[in-house]
């Protein structure tokens, strides 16, 4: 149980315990964050660099069709990734919830293991499979399904595949938690009223697990929208998302204030998503 520090000793203890993290997060997180927010409103110097003069040009510039297109593509890829993760993940969550308790934990661990391994390598593995002379094309040609290699890498589809692969576990876990926490008496009631299993699923199970679906969707959507490594390695410049646009501004384009403005937009979308996530968690808490 937490207490309000009363004695001088307790107040000192609290200060000693808190100050290193307050110091570190202020200097190396809050101030850099403030710097980026400020950068979004200043001007780019003629020869790179920056000029400290307040203006809104960077945000106005983002309205250019070129950038709106990239924003739209990020949104589209993130939405399709979320829907695909739901279609792939929900049945797996359902199957998992039906396992006996002992084997369930083993299957959960088996699912989490790749999720924790190096992100760059997991993405590279798909590059290895999808490229022109890669395994998939070789296999398809060997069995005579195609005559010449397909262009699989450097497409929007490859990026969606990589993102689903990376984040589908974020969809499965909340759906699984919802399914396991279902009130069994409701399903019995449906069965007693002669609903078949499909009807029971559509009328009872699915509506009651919507909070899990909402949480999972946000856990997939937020990192997908802000992705940088996946579109870089699997999109190869042909399926750039917002993350790549930011990287270019800080790299080759050398327009830091514009890059800062785009980052600010990305963070606003991400914060909004997180806010929705916590709201959905709270509504889940009320339901259970």
């Amino acid at each position: 149980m937490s207490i309000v520090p009363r004695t001088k000793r307790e107040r000192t203890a609290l200060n000693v315990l808190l100050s290193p993290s307050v110091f570190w997060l202020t200097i190396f997180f809050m101030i850099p964050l403030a710097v980026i927010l400020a950068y979004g409103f200043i001007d780019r110097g003629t020869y790179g660099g920056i000029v400290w003069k307040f203006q809104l040009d960077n945000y106005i510039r983002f309205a250019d069709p070129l950038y709106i297109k990239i924003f739209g593509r990020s949104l589209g890829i993130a939405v399709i990734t979320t829907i695909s993760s739901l279609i792939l993940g929900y049945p797996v969550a359902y199957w998992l919830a039906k396992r006996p308790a002992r084997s369930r934990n083993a299957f959960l661990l088996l699912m989490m293991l790749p999720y924790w391994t190096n992100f760059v390598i997991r993405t590279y593995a798909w590059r290895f499979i999808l490229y022109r002379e890669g395994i998939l094309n070789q296999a398809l040609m060997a069995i005579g399904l195609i005559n010449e290699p397909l262009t699989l890498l450097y497409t929007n589809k490859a990026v969606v595949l990589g993102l689903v692969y990376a984040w589908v576990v974020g969809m499965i876990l909340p759906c699984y938690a919802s399914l396991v926490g279902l009130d069994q008496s409701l399903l019995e009631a449906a069965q007693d009223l002669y609903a078949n299993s499909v009807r029971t699923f559509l009328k009872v199970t699915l509506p009651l697990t919507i909070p899990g679906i909402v949480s999972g969707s946000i856990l997939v959507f937020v990192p997908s929208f802000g992705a940088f490594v996946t579109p870089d390695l699997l999109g190869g410049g042909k399926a750039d998302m917002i993350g790549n646009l930011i990287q270019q501004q800080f790299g080759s384009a050398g327009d830091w204030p514009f890059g800062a403005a785009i980052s600010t937009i990305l963070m606003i979308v991400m914060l909004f998503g997180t806010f929705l996530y916590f709201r959905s968690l709270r509504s889940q808490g009320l339901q259970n």
Partner: protein
Amino acid sequence: MTTQLTSPTPTNNSFFSRFKGRSSLGSLLGRSLFSGFAGFFYIFLYAPIVLLILFSFNASRFPTNWTGFTFDWYRKLFDNYAIALALKNSLIVSLSSTVISTIIGTMVSIAMERYRFKAKTSFDAVLFLPIIIPDIAMAIMLLAFFVLLKVQLGLTTIIVSHVAFNISFVAVIVRARMASIDSTFEEAAGDLYANEWQAFWRVTFPLLIPGILGGALFAFTLSLDDYVITFFTSGPGSTTLPVRIYSMVKRGITPETNALSTLMLLASATLLPLSLWLQGKGDEI
């Protein structure tokens, strides 16, 4: 940054097993359909990784065909000076950032779980932000900050940045452990005339150790695997393994890359279950 997902607590499963008895042809078909789908999912999850590992032992330079088993690519890896340097840098960064962030993260966890104070809710939010912010945004804000202060980019800036995100991850894990410790233990120590200081060091802290070690291992893995933030805060000569792998990957597909990737996968596949096991250890208390 990967969002850490805590696995949901397993509850008893009487609900689904109730339907097991009704074994019509339809439900049998439905069950095998689901099992088949789940099987497909696990293949989807593991196939890319397994293929990568397999072809790191292929004698041929091209994944087109399998020409025999070899350790050559691993041998080449150990002879490669650039990779040895990257490994050294990676270990320096991961070890230093883990030690610093574990100490700071544990301290803040104790403060947050034991005391109530002004602005606690807002500080809680700040503590949570580095976990949810996209890596690319965190990377460029640190880069802009260091450049503005004219700090030379190198190992120090990478370490400082890794600590900035790892404090939050350590805190999540240690706080979970802290919250699960029964406060009556410390009260009992108090009844036995231990002062607060003794009660903490003799009772609470030993119980906290699995959480701290679990948090440290998690921080170490995150730091060892990070590419985006490291790339933007590194300078010449401070390349780490993920940054090296990334540039190898962008240049082309080679068996050396597969071999290096296999070793990195092995590292995280060992460290993370170890971290989990430590976090779960002693939960019965």
